[in-house]
């Protein structure tokens, strides 16, 4: 076994463990089998588990996501892979009108133990139809749990608890993270999929990020530390339901917060978090809540334009400094 484990390998290992552990689990999606997954996540699983359980689906997002819901109702524990969040829009009806609504609409009779994984985010010059961050839309919907693993350990440890959740869980894997490596840690550590996690302790302000924004937010915290500013970094991890307790506890201590979110600013998850901090911690704040979000454009192809459209470490540092500048004398 190699000394390091990549995010991609961690997801694969989590899939392998789940498939081995529970015969009801199967993986279904476009090119998950023979091709090995469009991001090579499921490479080798077809040979290990066969075509019934590593099920290649045609380009029918609405159809196979709905089939995943039906199979979950029929007693299975399906894991559906959608190539990217942009393509998930073709399945939005089944996810929102059926998966999320069924338990309540049926008066509690029917639940949908379905896991849907998909890649999200920009950074690879794939332009406007493969690069968006729409997880906040899903985080808007009651009845769904929305997860965003930002570390190799979370990529490995979130899948099993997601499968144990009796309700639909969406897992957003940022495409930029698949090559992220961490020292291999042996067995998977179970992840509490109800809680955010403090990735770096600090006293001067709280930086809140998730998924692909976590590494650059941690980099911003390091840059700030060189100037003597100790930023606390919270990895949201769970986009719905939000772990307001962890956020509020931190912000009440640091009295300042910047939210880093790759999504478009208007109506974003960052907007929701900001509103909650205002509602519940207004008198603890020493400065208005700051936000560093994606520019409000369809993500462009050219490298320099794509970079300009995304939250970058210097912008996070600048936003933090401007908040600290507002510190009362």
């Amino acid at each position, binding site marked *: 076994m190699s000394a390091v484990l990549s995010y991609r390998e961690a997801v694969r290992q989590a899939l392998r463990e789940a498939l081995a552990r529970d015969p009801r689990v199967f993986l279904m999606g476009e090119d998950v089998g023979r091709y090995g997954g469009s991001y090579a996540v499921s490479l080798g699983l077809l040979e290990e588990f066969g075509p019934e359980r590593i099920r290649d689906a*045609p380009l029918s997002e609405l*159809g*196979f996501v*709905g089939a995943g819901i039906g*199979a979950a*109702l*029929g007693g299975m524990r399906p894991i559906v892979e959608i190539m990217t969040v942009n393509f998930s829009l073709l399945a939005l009806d089944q996810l929102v009108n059926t998966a999320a609504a069924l338990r309540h609409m*049926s008066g509690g009779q029917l639940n949908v133990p379905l896991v849907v994984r998909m890649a999200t985010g920009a950074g690879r010059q794939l332009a406007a139809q493969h690069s968006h961050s729409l997880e906040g839309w899903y985080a808007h919907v009651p009845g769904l749990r929305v997860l965003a693993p930002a570390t190799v350990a979370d990529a490995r440890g979130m899948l099993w608890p997601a499968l144990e959740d009796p309700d639909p869980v969406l897992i957003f894997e940022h495409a930029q993270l698949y090559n992220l490596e961490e020292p291999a840690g042996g067995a998977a550590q179970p992840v509490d999929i109800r809680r955010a996690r403090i990735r770096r302790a600090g006293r001067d302000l709280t930086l809140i990020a998730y998924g692909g924004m976590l590494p650059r937010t941690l980099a911003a915290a390091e840059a700030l530390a060189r100037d003597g500013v100790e930023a606390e970094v919270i990895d949201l991890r769970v986009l719905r339901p939000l772990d307001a307790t962890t956020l509020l506890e931190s912000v009440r201590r640091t009295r300042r917060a910047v939210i880093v979110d790759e999504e478009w600013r208007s109506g974003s998850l960052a907007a929701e978090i900001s509103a909650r901090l205002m509602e519940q911690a207004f008198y603890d704040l020493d400065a208005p809540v700051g936000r560093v979000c994606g520019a409000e454009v369809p993500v462009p192809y050219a490298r320099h334009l794509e970079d300009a459209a995304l939250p970058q470490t210097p912008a996070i540092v600048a936003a933090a400094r401007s908040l600290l500048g507002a510190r009362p004398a």
Partner: protein
Amino acid sequence: MSLTGIYPVPLGRDDAVALVHQMLRIRRFEEACAELYGAGKIRGFLHLYIGEEAVASGALAVLGPEDAIVATYREHGHALARGIAASRIMAEMYGKVTGCCRGRGGSMHLFDAATRFYGGNAIVGGGLPLAVGLALADHLERRARVTACFFGEGAIAEGAFHESMNLAALWRLPVLFCCENNRYAMGTALERSESQTDLCAKAASYRVPAQAVDGMDVVAVRQATASAAAAVRAGGGPQFLEFRTFRFRAHSMFDPERYRAKAEVEEWKKRGPLHTFTERLKAQQLFSEADFARLEAEVAAELQAAIGFAESSGLEPVEDLLRDVVAAEPPP
């Protein structure tokens, strides 16, 4: 397609009378719903099945408790025929906590886990992928069950229909696709929405065996469903049945019916499934006026009890509004 009324009813008396009973239950239930809607007891959208009773009555008569049913927003008939108590359906219409979905679903979203009744779906075509998945679970678990999926001909214009047909055929899944072709998708006639109006040809293009059935003839529906379901259950993959039927009432309670001629409706009413079938049975001395009167009385009593139950039931406490959005006990 079979021709109504020419061939003898190939059923024993008990089976035949059971079909009359089922169709009559649905007819009277729907008539009561229309009245109660007028009286303000039922709100929201209400889609009546009057005229189409032969389809649910005939098809569900030959499916077993192990099978799954997926239906549409015009599903009171299917729910009744599946065995959900009329009282629980009526209470659902009333929005009462004793309703089959505690009053959360209403007319368009009836569910019943106990009878494997998976809705009630107010998204046209929304039930088709669900049916494919239920069948996929049976396929993976090697269970000889059938998932019967009802949808209107309007759903055939949706991508969900085509994706679902392809998936079911590709994976040879045990789905019985039951298209209720009542000729109008709300107000849009089939000819005005489909370049190819031969619906069986569409199914056949996915290599799904397809058959058009006289949906006004409850016996034809019953026979066709029995043989198609047997083929599905035997592992032969999906089957497609097109039931040619007609709704006698408006699309919903808000429909002024500007899109079709009264003469067309009157013409179809002559083929009404209830009276044509009872006439055939009478001609064969399998059924009498006295039998009909007895069934009417039985149905009236059931309906009266259902309405009484709905009237006297309580409402779900508002404190429970957020109950069952997700599990009460999330995972550790």
